[in-house]
Each structure stands twice: as structure tokens, then as C-alpha cells.
């Protein structure tokens, strides 16, 4: 059974969002990392790049395959988790402790369209 954390927001494409003021901290869920298997590369945008809700902002690469990352919110990247450059496996080890990007939100109302923990648990059917 996959770990799901109460208080976070979740997208249908298995990203989680933690809100700190107008900053959205974005990572992938435990379910997603388990489905991917060993993650070997995280393709992340640079600070300053603009991301759009539900549009691709990067990718996770496992040994076997590549899986696009979709932004749960629109805004500007303020920070990327450079630790994942050299240690992408951190996403497997602790998917909620290792965020991928921080985004300054342009339209925080978009958060309302995301699921809460219970909604996400229902979606993945666990």
C-alpha cells in the first residue's frame, strides 16, 4: 500500500503539492515512484522557467522508461532540487521528503482543482 500524506494536495498525474504561502513545493507520490521502479535521472527545469498547470515540466527516468512530470499549478520555478542531480534515487527512498521544484504560483485558485489525500487514495484504488 502506498504512503499518502494528509494535508498535501494531489494531481491525477501523481504529483503532490505542499503549499507555503504563494509557493507550491512539488514532488511525486509514493505510488508513482513505486510504479516507476529505480529512478536514475530527474529532468528538471531551471529556476526562472515558467510552468503551466497540467503541462509537462520535466521527466523522471527509471531504468526502463521515461515518465513525464506535469505541473499541478501555473507559475515560475523559483528553485529546483539540485540534490536529485547526483542522487535521483532519493525520490525512491523518500518521495515526500525529496521535492523536485518550488513554484511561485500565478493563480493559487488552481489548487482547488487538485485532490486531497482521501480523493487521491480513492483514485489510485488503495
Amino acid at each position, binding site marked *: 500500500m502506498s504512503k499518502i500524506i494528509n494535508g498535501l494536495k494531489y494531481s491525477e498525474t501523481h504529483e503532490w503539492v505542499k503549499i507555503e504561502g504563494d509557493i507550491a513545493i512539488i514532488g511525486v507520490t509514493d505510488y508513482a515512484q513505486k510504479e516507476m*521502479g529505480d529512478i*536514475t*535521472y530527474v*529532468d528538471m527545469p531551471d529556476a526562472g522557467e515558467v510552468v503551466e498547470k497540467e503541462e509537462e515540466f520535466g521527466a523522471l*527516468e527509471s*531504468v*526502463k522508461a521515461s515518465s513525464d512530470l506535469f505541473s499541478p499549478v501555473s507559475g515560475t520555478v523559483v528553485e529546483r532540487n539540485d540534490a536529485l*542531480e547526483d542522487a535521483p534515487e532519493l525520490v525512491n527512498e523518500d518521495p515526500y521528503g525529496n521535492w523536485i521544484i518550488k513554484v511561485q504560483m500565478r493563480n493559487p485558485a488552481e489548487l482547488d482543482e487538485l485532490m486531497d489525500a482521501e480523493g487521491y487514495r480513492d483514485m489510485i484504488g488503495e
Partner: protein
Amino acid sequence: MEENLKKTCLWEKHVALGAKMSPFAGFDMPIQYSSIILEHNAVREKVGMFDVSHMGEIFVIGPDAESFVNHIFTNEIRGFEAGKVLYGMMCREDGGVVDDLLVYREFEPEHFLLVVNAANIDKDFQWIMSQTDGYDVKVVNESEKWGQIAVQGPEAEEIVTRVLGLEEASALTFYTYCESSWKGERMVLSRTGYTGEDGFEIYTSPEGIIEIWDILIREGVVPCGLGCRDTLRFEAGLPLYGDELADNITPVMAGLGMFCKLEKEFIGRDVLVKQKAEGVKEKLVGLEVLDKAIPRAGYDVLDPEGKKVGVVTTGYHSITLDKSICFAFVETSQAALGNSLQVQIRKKVFPAVVIKKRFYQTKYRK
């Protein structure tokens, strides 16, 4: 799960071990049990085992068996003693590869065993049958009657001899086999594999294979799925039918000319002779991407000016070599070792260089 997927004799074992299962070649097969990286490293450093019962076993028997197999197979099978195993291909008249396979020269005279890819069993059998005119041979597809386990890695010999009691394994060199038995059933014990490591492929009845699997699991041999089977064969520079070989790809294009003996007659030979003399439009190469980004099958290969000159067939971040590498078909003018190219990975383009296809120094017992 897809309907009508076939199951190998070890299917229940995979499910009980909690393997991640996925369709492959019409079978419901284990992709990984724990982690592709862990399973991959077990084979490189110690020993691992694979269920390869999905592979096909086709027997060719009869007075003309040798001349017939030599007619449909690209490699030269004459002049070898019983117990020899040869790798090669079956080609169509136009040189396209029907399948790549192993040919076993059996100890019983006029008997050959052809081990073929699971996805191609029916196609191969029909192809072989369609070529038998004028040859006194019987062709029998026994794929369903045989199970197969591959035990691979530097400790494979120790496991096969000590744990399974198959001491005859020690005398085998790479690409030879011997006859053995398991609980009164015929066993083919072959020093072959698809990983770049020393190892054995063991063929016997499905019941025997289940027993052997259980013994090896109890001994702590790491079960390995098709995920690492692909990463291992890829690092060793070995092609996979469907990726680097196909009906419209010839052995010359795929860089497998050394397994085609052009001084003898075989189906497709004339086209291969012509291709070798005149050159081919595209060739399979190895590429190293000079970045951590990973080239994947289907990605475009570009020249330094950005013009498309090829396409990736298999690519990984190599587990053993810790670099991003791939096989790609590229225009022959771009195929020289050391040539600078680029690979388009999602929105970005990364520099790449042509390197030898055998990325990993294989460790066979010669």
C-alpha cells in the same frame, strides 16, 4: 491484464514472489522482483537466474538435417562435433532477419535443436516448414514441452555444480552443451546466455524446471526479471529481435556479419554478399550521450547541424558503466567510431559520440 496471455511453468512462482508482471512476446512475464538495478548487479557480481521458459525449442531431425539447417541458418554448422552451440540468424531471400537463434548440434546423429525467440515461435516454425522441399527432414515444435532457466553470473558454475549437482557443467566451455537428466527426464545443460557473463541455460521438463527453481530460491539465488535481462544484454552489445533485428533489417545492417558465413550457401546470402560489397544505407552503432539524460527507443539521432540521421533502438543509463548509452541505426556516412552526433531527448538536444557496440567487456568462459 491482456486476454489470452500465455504462462510459463514458473508463472505461479513469479506471482508468489510478488514480481511486477507484464506482457512480453505473448507471455505474462516477470519484469522485476525487487529492483532492476539490484538484479542486474547480482548477475554482474555474483549470480542470478531467469525464467526463460518462453523461448522456443524446434527440433530438426532426419538424413538431411545438417544440410537443411545449414541452408536456413547464416552461420556454418558443418565441421563441429556434437555438443557445439552456434549463434546466427535465419534470413529471408531479401536478407531480412526472420529470427536470431541458437543451433545445437545434438549427440544423436542427424538431430539439431533450434532455440528461437518466444515472439517468433509460430512464424519461425512456419518459415522453416516452408523451406523443407527437397530435404528429408522432420521439424517438430516442442516449445510447450520444455521449461528453461538461465543461471548467469561469475558464481553460476559453482551453483550449477554444487547446488544442482550437475558436475558435468565444469567441463563445458562457452557455447557448448552436454546431455544430462533430471529425475529421469532429458536435460540440456548449455554454457550459454544473454547477459555478457559466464553462465548456463538449463532445459528440461516443466516439472523439473519448477523443482530447480525452488532449489535455487532456497539457496538464495536472486530471481531476475526481463527488466535486467534487457539491461544486461544491451551492455554486452547483444541485439534483441524487435529492437535491433526485424524482417526488414539484415545482419549486415545490424553489424552481425561475423555470424554470416558468406562462403557457403544459405537463404538470403546473395543479398548479404551484395550489401557487404556495396555497403548499406544504415548501420547499427553504439552511441554515448555526453550527459545524464537518457536516450530511449524511437528518439531521433541528429548530425551536428541538427539534421536527422538516425533513430535510437535501445537506450539506458548503463547500470554497470554509469553512463547514458544507446544502440541506434544511423546513416552509414555517420557510423564511424568517434563520429560526433546529437540525440534529441524530449525538448533538448545532447551531444553524443559513436562508440563500440559492446559497451561492457564480456566475461565468457572460453
